[in-house]
């Protein structure tokens, strides 16, 4: 296990060192970015709409019973931007994009395409890892912005339409504005940026480690997704503790 962690850290460091090559790889970054956004935006929005809705549905009646229904905007607002949007999007992207990265690079390893790159003195870190890491590091925080907005919207609709809550849209967003400030949104975006680096590095590392045939590719994909999700949840705790210092 420690060996794998060391290799992931080393791959991340090598990718950071390759940063000056990012502009040269801009076409690949754009392609990957389009792939991530196109594949995930609709699903991210649907997921967030319902998460926001469920959050309002669960907490709204409890608050209303105690005469605190007007706080619902603040609760949904803060929960979405500080915790739910970054973590849920991280898990979604680990499943959708992390698996695709591991499978694509893994099959390139199995079918000797990565070896072919090496024989042409083309560094696989520059050619394969860097564009994916840059693309996901930009795309995930942007997805989180959409997720936060649709989550708020979902919470607002449920709060307004549910008879047990009975908070109007304007009252919902008015409370939300009181509770949520830009720093809270910034915290969520920063978390998602860190999660993106984890997903990109872990998935590319698993892809590059692939040996064997189709079974090896399947094993790499599973490991990439599981390891990414576990790391996201662990990292979330420590990032939250650290970010609370600045609140």
């Amino acid at each position: 296990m420690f060996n794998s962690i060391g290799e992931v850290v080393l791959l991340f460091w090598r990718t950071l060192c390759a940063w000056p090559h990012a502009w040269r790889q801009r076409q690949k970054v754009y392609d990957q970015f389009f792939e991530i956004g196109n594949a995930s935006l609709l699903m991210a929005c649907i997921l967030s709409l319902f998460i926001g809705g469920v959050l309002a549905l669960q907490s709204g009646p409890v608050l209303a019973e105690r005469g605190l229904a007007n706080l619902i905007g603040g609760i949904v607002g803060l929960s979405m931007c500080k915790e739910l949007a970054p973590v849920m999007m991280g898990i979604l992207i680990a499943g959708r994009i992390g698996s695709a990265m591991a499978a694509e690079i893994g099959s390139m390893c199995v079918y000797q395409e990565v070896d072919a790159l090496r024989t042409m003195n083309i560094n696989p870190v520059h050619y394969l890892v860097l564009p994916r890491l840059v693309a996901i590091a930009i795309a995930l925080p942007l997805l989180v912005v959409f997720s936060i907005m649709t989550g708020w919207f979902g919470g607002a609709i449920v709060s307004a339409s549910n008879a047990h809550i009975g908070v109007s849209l304007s009252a919902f967003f008015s409370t939300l504005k009181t509770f949520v400030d830009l720093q809270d949104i910034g915290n969520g975006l920063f978390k998602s940026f860190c999660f993106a680096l984890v997903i990109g590095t872990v998935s590319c590392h698993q892809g590059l480690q692939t040996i064997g045939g189709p079974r090896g590719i399947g094993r790499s994909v599973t490991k990439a997704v599981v390891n990414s999700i576990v790391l996201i949840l662990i990292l979330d705790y420590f990032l939250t503790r650290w970010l609370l210092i600045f609140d």
Partner: protein
Amino acid sequence: MHSSPSHPPSGLALRVRGLRKSFLGVEVLKGLDFEVRPGEIFVIMGPSGSGKTVLLKHLIGLTRPDQGEVLVNDRPVDSPEVMEKFRMAMVFQSGALLNSLTVGENVGLYLAEHRLKTPAEIALIVADKLEVVGLKGSEEKMPSELSGGMKKRAAIARALVIEPQLILYDEPTSELDPLSSVVIAEEIFALNQRIGVTSIVVSHDRDLAFGVADRIAFINQGRILAIGTPAEVRAHPDPLLQEFLNASFKPDQAKE
């Protein structure tokens, strides 16, 4: 390999000293020593599982040995100096074309990634190299649209673009029909004659080996059994080597 392929290359010398490699405790290469001279076609033959492809990966620095070394013009093959100074290419058994790129992009990949030519120049070079290997007009095709033989020829075109000083072929005629095998053999020979490239061919195709080789090394179970000119290898007394060279299917014996 970063240097621009603008001048005619001269073949590289390659020396292998005491090469040993094990995988999961099984020794695949058991102390190999041989030399490949500049500009020659050196064929490595042997039965399946004898360690030929593992050896080839060591020769281009894709795999590191447990013991011993591979020297290219007296410099270790995995040193950055070799990668910077010399141009080497490998034609993989499967072709190893990048499936996400077109044939044209695959062939021009080296020039495009190292920014050695403008896109217009690359397009001209790619068209020229594809014509050399008989794939004129295939630039826009995807690798999945090509047959096995066409993939190998495209891989040779990709290697030609590098204008290599050392080129390694892994089973270049496997899975090919006899006519395609002849085309590939002719191309290996013609390339060697045209630019003086040092060629190392791993194969168990006897016709190819004895047709193109200046020298042949016969490997069995990770050891060199025989090395020399085709005539010397053919005359070697080792029974296993003779059995390998003279193996043929005899229907009468099989029926008995």
